[in-house]
């Protein structure tokens, strides 16, 4: 087990190396270099561009150097100094911008994940064990609706309902008076009043999908002979269902944990824009739209790293819960 983890972590390094090359090539792909865009932007806004600034920037990014040198300069800055470069649009270091928004992203995404699992698990299990019962049809109906309606649509409808019925603005995480206020009990309560909206909105599609997956997985497992064996031993239905088929049906969830991490950063971009949430999604979207390539590159590199880490976590979890995988790996 320890060997397996060490091996996987070592594999990490070449994987990330290759990813960083791909990301860098993407950054370099658009025609022109960033400095020309920066200078053009500054000139357009009527600023006088200082030659010294241009020279220092040129040196900083090594834009006079060949591509390979520039790549190593970029990755070297990231690895040794945590310097992801400067965002053209915000004129601030990329790392600062990303970390600032990461906290809220994690808070919202993890709450959403927990909400999703808490709702989807019992409903999925019920749906499978009471297949074709009226409540199963109800769950299936709402499941498909949740899957079919885009999240931003639900967000818009909820906001509209909230505003027209209760006269209360659901956007953002705080009411206007609390946004800049220091933390207090009142601010916390105000946050709770707002945060359930993104959680529910972001959670619906995931919940619906999870219910369907759980139901399908569990239906497969419920027909397996080992379930009948457990029944023949005299176990009660609820005990045997939780112990055997649910346990086996968990595997697909655990393997999807790997995709959850990067989704935390990127998945909810459009909903976050609609609900004006201070998360990373909208910033990534804007960076891509305005070709703010160091910022976008920083995000993409981060997403890729999180995907790799997430995959590692789900692999380790799978090895823990499923002995078949454990022993194949030896």
């Amino acid at each position, binding site marked *: 087990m320890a060997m397996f983890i060490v091996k996987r972590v070592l594999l990490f390094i070449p994987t990330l190396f290759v990813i960083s090359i791909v990301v860098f090539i993407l950054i370099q792909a658009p025609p022109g270099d960033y400095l020309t865009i920066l200078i053009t932007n500054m000139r357009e806004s009527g600023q006088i561009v200082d030659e010294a600034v241009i020279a220092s920037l040129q040196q900083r990014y090594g834009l006079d150097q060949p591509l390979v040198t520039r790549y190593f300069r970029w990755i070297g800055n990231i690895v040794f100094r945590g310097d992801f470069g400067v965002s053209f649009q915000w004129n601030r270091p990329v790392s600062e911008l990303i970390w600032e928004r990461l906290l809220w992203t994690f808070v919202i995404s993890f709450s959403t994940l927990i909400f999703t699992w808490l709702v989807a698990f019992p409903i999925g299990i019920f749906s499978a064990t009471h297949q074709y019962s009226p409540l199963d049809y109800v769950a299936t109906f709402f499941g498909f609706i949740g899957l079919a309606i885009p999240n931003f649509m639900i967000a818009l409808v909820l906001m509209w309902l909230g505003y027209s019925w209760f006269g209360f603005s659901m956007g953002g995480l705080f009411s206007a008076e609390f946004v800049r206020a220091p933390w207090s009990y009142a601010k916390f309560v105000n946050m709770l009043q707002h945060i359930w909206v993104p959680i529910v909105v972001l959670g619906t599609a995931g919940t619906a999908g999870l219910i369907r997956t759980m139901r399908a997985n569990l239906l497969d497992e419920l027909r397996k002979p*080992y379930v009948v064996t457990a029944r023949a031993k*005299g176990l009660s239905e609820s005990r045997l269902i939780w112990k055997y088929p649910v346990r086996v049906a968990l595997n697909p969830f655990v393997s999807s944990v790997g995709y959850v991490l990067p989704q935390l950063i990127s998945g909810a971009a459009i909903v976050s824009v609609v609900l004006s949430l201070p998360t990373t999604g909208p910033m990534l979207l804007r960076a891509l739209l305005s070709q703010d390539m160091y910022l976008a590159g920083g995000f993409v590199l981060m997403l890729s790293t999180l995907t790799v880490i997430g995959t590692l976590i789900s692999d380790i979890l799978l090895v823990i819960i499923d*002995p078949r995988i454990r022993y194949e790996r030896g």
Partner: protein
Amino acid sequence: MTSASQTSDNTLLEVQGLKTHFFLDMGIVRAVDGVDFRISRGQTLGIVGESGCGKSVTAQSVMQIVPSPPGRIIDGSIVYFGSNSAVEISRFRANSREMRSIRGKEISYIFQEPMTSLSPVHTIGNQLEEAILLHTPVTRGEARGIAVEALARVRIGEPERIVNEYVHQLSGGMRQRVVIAQALSCNPQLLIADEPTTALDVTMQAQILRTIQDIQQESGMGLILITHDMGVIGQMADEVVVIYRGRVMEHGDVIAVFDEPLHPYTKALFDSIPRLDTDRPLRPISGSVPDPFLETTGCPFRDRCPSRFDACDSDAVPALAEVRPGHSARCYLHSGATEEGTE
């Protein structure tokens, strides 16, 4: 009846008029349509028949583990003569406490597929101890000891190591031994073995059957052995029940049935066994098991029967009639009696 006194002494399980039907969208499958049999302590009852004839559903009905819905026991009685008193287990609801206290403790079941009838993600020990802890007042540590003993009893080497292993680490024969050990771990009075050796090769089959026989001799439990293999029946059973389309076709002492099978279906089953000692070509039973959704009228076997004669055109189902003492058949060749209410 002379068997009345016998019943109270020796009988372990008595099944009468059992009907288990499956209510599907396409119609009703009458998987078991009136089955009677009786088994005594220490006795081995063989149930034979082709695939789909209702053998397994009969056995699962006794345990009340027929997949439901769509399956349902709609008629008949199943009486279990436990150590204290007779209980009509067919009255219990499938998931009731009473039924669960019999399942795995009094009556155990060995399934057809050793490959899939154990959980892939729990250790062998975990699965064995579960039933022990459920049915006997022992601690976890004691349960582990009983589990190890149970494995040793089915001739598994190094049982202390095996309890910590997972099913995919074992060979097919070992898995079936584990399944048997699991079924026997609570010392059941009755063991139902549903094709226990079908998935195994011939050598392994002989070993497993011998193990079951040895344990039966030690413990005096009753054994219901379900198989399509006449050879296994001949080796193991005291009495045999031949089932076709959910009904008992012939019932008798194994020697009597083997020496002189009464029902053409039983004869056909014997004829379809490949034999090395003659040059006689293999004679399969003509036709196949009819559409399971059709309700039987008349003799269930008449469309495939080589001995069909005028009487067989009757739409009444022939009754299971005692042709000789302790040997009965459901056939117009031997008795004109018909089943009530079928005409």
